[in-house]
């Protein structure tokens, strides 16, 4: 890898703030609303026994994926996490194939082999969720490296959360990307908890955005419950990346609306703080910025029927064939 010299001064990044079109607002609203409804329905399906294993809802964090994915193009890549449904949906996933996967059906994105924690979608350039916390950060960095080798004009948007930022691969990846000026955006979804461990207990310096400049890239902090802020920050980071100016770290502050996973009541969460965050619901904030209220209703109705259809589709879908599975096991 060659790098341009002299190294650019990596000052704290700034969000350029042109207005955001109604079209973009509606697009983001569709993603956020679909994610919200998807999570609620999946929680029902889980309780009815259609879903097993782990289910980590993205409730309360919808604006981050919705805003960030609206700022990149279909040809750009994303890397997701164990809390990944919102990333998938916002990148354009087919709800039918998502519900089917989470229900373990043959028609799912991963033929029922992956489940909630492992959805990937080649068609959407979604490189996949991950069960290993932090693993996506260097994988996304490597995808950006591949893009640079191929000389294709693409960007990688890597989602991960505060817990993952404790892993060594976080620092190593940021250093790597800055050293090689890779076209990657690190989207740190700071939801303030890694399972039950609060950020204040696992970081000596809780200003996570400041880790960007430390490694030689802009570090931007945005309100993760405001899709517009996330969109604008991602947009300028993507422009930077496409101009060959290298990576950006974005810290989007948010809060889970519940426990770590569906079976975690989250009693350790500060209920007052939680109530404050819930009062700043990302969907309400986004809705308040949209002029066409009728359009909102249309989107909501459309999402609801799409989701009903997806659930019907998944329920009608066959279980994967055991024989086919056995036949497909490679000899290595």
């Amino acid at each position, binding site marked *: 890898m060659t790098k341009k010299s002299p190294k650019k001064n990596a000052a704290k990044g700034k969000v350029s703030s042109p207005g955001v079109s109604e079209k973009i607002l509606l697009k983001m609203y569709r993603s956020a609303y679909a994610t919200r409804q998807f999570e609620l329905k999946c929680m029902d399906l889980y309780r009815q026994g259609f879903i*097993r*294993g*782990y289910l980590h809802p993205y409730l309360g964090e919808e604006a981050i994926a919705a805003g960030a994915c609206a700022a990149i193009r279909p040809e750009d890549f994303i890397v997701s996490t164990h809390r990944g449904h919102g990333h998938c949906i916002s990148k354009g996933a087919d709800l039918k194939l998502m519900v089917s996967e989470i229900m*373990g*059906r043959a028609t799912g994105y*991963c033929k*029922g*082999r*992956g*489940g909630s*924690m*492992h959805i990937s979608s080649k068609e959407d350039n979604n490189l996949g969720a*991950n*069960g*290993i*916390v*932090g693993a996506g950060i260097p994988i996304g960095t490597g995808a950006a490296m591949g893009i640079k080798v191929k000389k294709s004009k693409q960007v990688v948007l890597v989602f991960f959360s505060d*817990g*993952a930022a*404790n*892993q*060594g691969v976080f620092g190593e990846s940021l250093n790597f990307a800055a050293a090689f000026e890779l076209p990657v955006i690190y989207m740190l979804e700071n939801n303030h908890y*890694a*399972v*039950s*461990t609060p950020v204040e*207990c*696992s*970081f000596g310096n809780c200003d996570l955005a400041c880790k960007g400049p430390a490694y030689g890239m802009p570090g931007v902090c945005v309100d993760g419950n405001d899709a517009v802020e996330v969109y604008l920050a991602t947009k300028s980071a993507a422009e930077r990346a496409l101009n060959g100016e290298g990576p950006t770290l974005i810290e989007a502050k948010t809060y889970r609306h519940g426990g770590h996973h569906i079976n975690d009541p989250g009693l*350790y969460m500060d209920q007052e703080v939680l109530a404050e965050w819930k009062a700043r619901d990302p969907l309400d904030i986004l809705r308040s910025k949209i002029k066409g209220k009728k359009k909102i209703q249309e989107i909501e109705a459309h999402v609801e029927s799409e989701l009903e259809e997806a659930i019907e589709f998944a329920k009608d879908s066959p*279980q*994967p064939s*055991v024989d086919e*599975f*056995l036949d497909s*096991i490679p*000899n290595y």
Partner: protein
Amino acid sequence: MAEMMYREALNRALFEEMRRDPSVFIMGENIGERGGSYKVTEGLIKEFGPERVIDTPLAEATFTNAAVGAALVGTRPIVEILFVDFTTLPMDALVNQAAKYKFMSGGQGQVPMVLRTQGGAGNGLAAQHSQSLEALFYHIPGLKLVMPSTPYDAYGLLLSAIRDDAPTIFIEHKLLYMTKGEVPEEEYVVPMGEADVKREGEDVTLVTYSYMTLKCLEAAELLEKEGISVEVVDLRTLKPLDEETILESARKTGRVIIVHEACKRGGIGGDIAAMIMENAYDDLDGPVSRVCGLDTPVPYNLELEKVCVPTVEDIAEAVIKIT
């Protein structure tokens, strides 16, 4: 005797050892107030405080290496890694550091640490949360490896592991935590390196460990009705390996099947089979065989997951085939 769950037996062992020896401390993710995902560390923080029950940042490689360092200055760290699948992150700490320090330093120092972790399939947690990776550690000289199947053994072996001066990998199975068994009220240890004949028999020996011990005992029960007498040897400790007990049983029955959940290829079964053949070939009535997990990542779907792991029927069939 009190009946308790496997996870309660582990919890009791931790309490007792931490009371007995102030140099014992434990660290891992969400093990404090939350008590760990499987509740093994429940209550510890109340008695021992956050200095000896440490909720670490999410950084397995660092806190496991940190345990090595802490052990070198005279403490006895216990590290909890939530899933054995994540022990690949601190592999350097285990393979290059903990396992070798005593050797490389000419015996000047030692690393008396325990890494407790949990593995196995069965809960729909898919490919990165369902593995059986014990063979990775089995292959490394300098590490001890323990995989108990009952509350009795879990308690006694955890005590041994904490008191032992060698780095020890202690692997629990997610389907064992809620299983119950008798545990004496007074303190006892189960020495490492001693297998346990969990059921005596004459016709066939099943050599196994961890959760598969329960499956082998079920199979033995079924086979008894068919007139086949099965001996079940629970290894309990994989390293050191109790070769004597395995060979004694092999010589007695003349027929051995090794049963483990881990993939067959490169699994511990192959090594044990070779050891039996090297030492007891003339006493065998046929080749040693294996019933193991399929050589595949574990899928999410329930039906697919089931076929990846040996069942009672698989074990019984294998026995019938050689008798």
